[in-house]
Every structure is written in structure tokens, then in C-alpha cells.
């Protein structure tokens, strides 16, 4: 909880520096989730993340951000012609993304780079 708050404050501070936004409650960032998510909205989130990775295909769960403000993605596990995981012993990197609510906006944050993008036509709810 405390960690989340700190994350939110840090993220807000970053945004302040980046955009010069005023530090009002409407401009603070709060980790957020969604109550409902259409396939179109999910595709929008996938597209934003995909763009951050140069167009790489991204697949998210149908209920992404419904139960958590954080989502982690990683390389998809591929199977060989005999049905075995090609890379069954690995320590691959993961990439995390956080959904924030800022005023009436929902922002998707690339936690690795700090980049944030507003998601149109998405309603989210601050979790704290």
C-alpha cells in the first residue's frame, strides 16, 4: 500500500517535470483498475504496448487491469514440433505496465521507461 502510494507520487512527480502540470488532486496519479473492458478497449491497450516495442505482437488477458493495476508481459512461450517448450529453462526479462487514473483520464505507464499514454474511451477507477 505504502509502496503503491510512493509509486503514484513518484509517477506524478515525473509527470510534473515532463508536462508542468499543477499539483492538484486532479493531476495526481493513482493506480487504477477497470470494472469493465471491451475487446476493443483491450486491443487499444495491446496496441499501445506494442508500439512501445516497435510493433511486436502483444497479447493480454481478456480481464487485464480488472483485478490489478499492474500487468506484466514477457516473451511468449513457444512450443517445438514435438509440443515441448522451446525454452523450458530460462530467466527471461519481464516488462511491467501500470494503469493510473489522473483526473478523469486513464493513463497507461511503461514502468521501464516512465512513458505514459492516455487511453481514450476507457473508464478506470483509482484503487486507493
Amino acid at each position: 500500500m505504502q509502496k503503491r502510494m510512493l509509486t503514484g507520487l513518484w509517477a506524478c512527480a515525473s509527470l510534473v517535470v515532463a508536462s508542468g502540470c499543477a499539483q492538484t488532486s486532479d493531476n495526481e496519479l493513482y493506480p487504477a483498475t477497470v470494472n469493465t473492458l471491451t475487446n476493443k478497449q483491450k486491443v487499444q491497450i495491446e496496441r499501445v504496448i506494442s508500439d512501445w516495442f516497435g510493433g511486436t505482437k502483444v497479447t493480454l488477458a481478456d480481464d487485464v487491469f480488472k483485478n490489478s493495476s499492474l500487468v506484466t508481459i514477457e516473451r511468449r512461450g513457444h512450443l517445438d514440433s514435438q509440443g515441448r517448450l522451446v525454452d523450458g529453462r530460462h530467466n527471461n526479462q519481464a516488462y511491467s505496465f501500470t494503469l493510473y487514473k489522473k483526473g478523469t483520464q486513464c493513463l497507461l505507464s511503461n514502468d521501464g521507461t516512465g512513458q505514459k499514454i492516455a487511453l481514450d474511451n476507457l473508464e478506470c477507477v483509482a484503487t486507493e
Partner: protein
Amino acid sequence: MRLSKLAAVIVATISFSGLTACGGGSNSSGPAPTPTPTPTGPSWQPGVFASASSLEAKCESPRTGIEPFTGQQYPDEAGSSLEEKLWLRSWTNETYLWYDEVDDNNPANYSVLGYFDQLKTTATTPSGTPKDNFHFYQPTDEYNELTQSGVASGYGFDWEFVRNTSPRELVVRFAEPGSPADLAGIPRGASVKLVNGIDFVNTNSSTDIDALNDALFPADNGTTTSFVFELVNGDELAVDVTSADVQVSPVQHVQVLDTPAGRTGYFQFNTFIRTAQYDLIDAFDGFIDENVTELVIDLRYNGGGLLSLASQLSYMVAGPAQTNNAYFETLQFNDKSPNRDPVTGNVIQPTPFYSNEIDYNAGRLLSAVLPSLSLTRVFILTTGSSCSASESVINALRGIDVEVVQIGSTTCGKPYGYYPTDNCGTTYFSIQFQGINYKGFGDYADGFIPTETPNYGYEVPGCAVDDDFSHPLGDPAEGMLSTALAYAETGSCPQPVNPAPVSPDAVNAQSSESSLAIENPLTLKERLILQNKINEPIVTEQE
């Protein structure tokens, strides 16, 4: 394309030679010919290997733009297929585990991918199977595809391909909790009979098989398919199921059983993914609270994954005293790299038994210590689908003298690993290291074999038992679990131990070469199966 380029070079060389010869005869009487540069590209010389680094990223079709994962420009330069093949050859010579068992064939006789395909050992294991069954490549953009951790696309079935030729048999191992298959009430052991009205078992029509592939492994979510199953009790179940991108539950059926051998913990563990960490911790916390003295880990469908999570699981079984000053696994590369990892250049450091939680997003250890049972014996349920990191758990625990009792069938036999490496848009998987436990053992290329009379390092005390689809997973009456419980009580395998297979003549009838065969299985999560070559595999097979 490659041949015509090569031909152009040859023509240029011949022309130059001709001009030189003519010019040589007219040196004193005419102007000196304009010097034409002699092609100086690399060439194949048997037994002579340029460094791989001098040949990398010299591509017949160089990529341009920004590399998605690094944000840097692609390193590709204009080159040739010959240079791509020579890079593969040198890279293999430098890093392949069995580089000295690879024939140094002339690359001119191969395509790039065909050349890679033969850059491997042809030796066999003691059982006669190829020693290197894991040589692989795929387009880099496919390799880089990303997915939310633990998300699988489809209906949520985990399939058992019992028989891939007519009469086919495709059985539900389990349905992911909360998945469309689960919500439709399709139980373990249900056997597919009809798919969208097509006779799954008997059809030999290519059109039908195409339709079956499309229906069983839909490309997109939202695809609704009508199934008719035959259940274990003989009843039929007709249901419509709609595909989705669902979050899988890697740890299932966590429970504590009161048995004659004592309080016995059990859980089914399907894949080593980062989202499993806290499920495992919760399970072990519960076992500790319940004073568990025996543990059964069901890895029968676990094909591996994160090695660090395998280390954490092993620690939670063995505890601090048994893991103190020991390591989970170290890597052995080829004899050119006894001390340094040839890919990273780092000194080889064993993977420890991780005793702490890991922040997998940040890639760092946390201060919280993992729970542990400090067991001296553990039962592990296996099948041929138990692979890689699953096998490393068995090997690592045996490396510190934790008694592993293996119940089920022989594991897949993959003590090996690699650094998937891109060159010119293709990612290559060539075995570069072998995992070795604390006792220095890692030779289980034929898998770990459960036996009552083990004689070799790859033979593990335990009982050979077939998978039992007639009972739910986690049911104490299920064949493999019941055998483990009986062994825990008596110290020996119950007789008989083998439950009836799914159908009398079905098991192990999968290897037909028929063009109408269904190809093995798990691949199904991503591609199909019903062979006749139905769908293009997401993972390209070697040519």
C-alpha cells in the same frame, strides 16, 4: 536469389581473370586496365573458422529501422547468404555444446536454414534417440512476441493427444479454472468426438481437417465452437465454447491429505511462470501451518519455464539446512569454455537455491525469506511432458540428497539450454550448455526414469504408472497420486500400479507417419494439430 548473387560474383571473378590475362599480354602497348577489386568476402575453408563476431549481422536481406527490444538501429549490414551460413558455422564452432561432433560441410550446398539444421551432432543417447532433439529456429519477430504473464489464448483446455491417427483420440487433461472450457463444465478425461459436427475421430477429409484445426485452435478470441465429448462414464456432453485470452492458474488443487503416512501436502504445478511465485508461497505456508510431513508435487504437465522459480521451489522443499553451501545448478559449456560463459563472457556462477522472494519485474531478490518444509523426501509425479525446469528440480534435489520418489512415466530428458540468438531476422536455438547439479550430475538426456531398482543416475526410485484420466487431478484415488500415497505408507510400489490407459490400444499409438496423423500436442495451444498439415505452426519446424 542467393544463387544468382553468388553467380554474379563468380561471373565477375571470371571476367576479371580474363581481363587480367588479356591485359597481361598488352602491358607494354596500351593503357593499364582500370583495377577491378578482387572479391574479398569470406569463404569456406574446411577446418578454418573466422570468429563469429566478424561474420554476424552480414545479411542477404538486412533489416532496417529500430530493433524493438533495444531501441537501437538494427545492426544488419548488406551481406550474403554465404556470410549468414558462415556465421552459423563459426557460432556453432564457438558455442555449441557438442561442436566437435558437427560435420564441417560446405555451406554452398545448403540454404541458410538447411545449413543450420545440419549444424548439430548426429550422435544418439543410450536409448537410441538423437542426442540433440532441440535444434531449432524461428523468425525473430515471432520469437519476440509478447504476452501477459500466464495468459493463454484458446478455450482453456489442456489436451492429451492420445492418438493422432484415425481413429483419433484427443482427451482433456484439465480445463483451466475460470476458462471457457471450465465454465462449460468439461471434465478431465472427456474425449472429443465431434467438432462443429465434424467426426473428429474418423474423418480423413482434408477439408474437414482444416476446419477442425481452425475450430480447435482459433486464431482469435471470440470464436465459438460446438463440441461433443464422450465422458469417462460413457455419457455424451454437447457444449458450445467460445475462445478467449485467459489467465492460467499455474498452481492448482493445493490440499493436505490425512494418510497413513502422515499429513501429506499435494499440489499440481503446471508451469514455471512468475505469477506462480506467490501461489507457491501460499501453498507452502499452508503446508507448514498444517504440519505436513510428506509432499507430493504434481509436475506431470509441467514443461518448464523460469529456472529461478525452479530454484525457489526446490528451496521450499529442502529448506535452509540442506541447501546451505550448496547450489541448485551450474552450467557446463563446451570444453572451450570451462570457466567462462562463452555468450556473456562472465565467469560461470552456479544458480543458488534462492531462499528469498524475487521481484520478477525488477529482477532482484527481496528480503522476504521463502517458507520451507525442510523435507528429506518428496514425491514428484511425472510424465513425458515433465520437462526442462521440472527436471532440474528433480536433479537439484537429488544433488543435495533429498530423496526424490518419482511416480509416473519417464520425463522428457532436457538437461540442456541455450541463449536464443538472432542473426539477420532469424533466432537460432542451438544447445550451448548442460545443467549440472551439486553432485556434478546432469546426464539425463533420456529423461528421469522411475524404477523400483535404480542403477544409474537417471533412474529414480519410484513407480512406473500411467496417467489416469478416470479421476480428477488431486483426487487421492487418481492413479499416480494414489501410488505416491501408497509408496509413502509402505516404501514400495503397490501392485499392480498401472491403471488402464484411456482406451485399450490407445496409449503410445502416436507415432504414425500417416499424412492424416495428428501431430503431438501441447503445440496445440498455438497451432494445430490435426495434421494433414493443417495450420502453419507458429514455431516453424526445421526444414
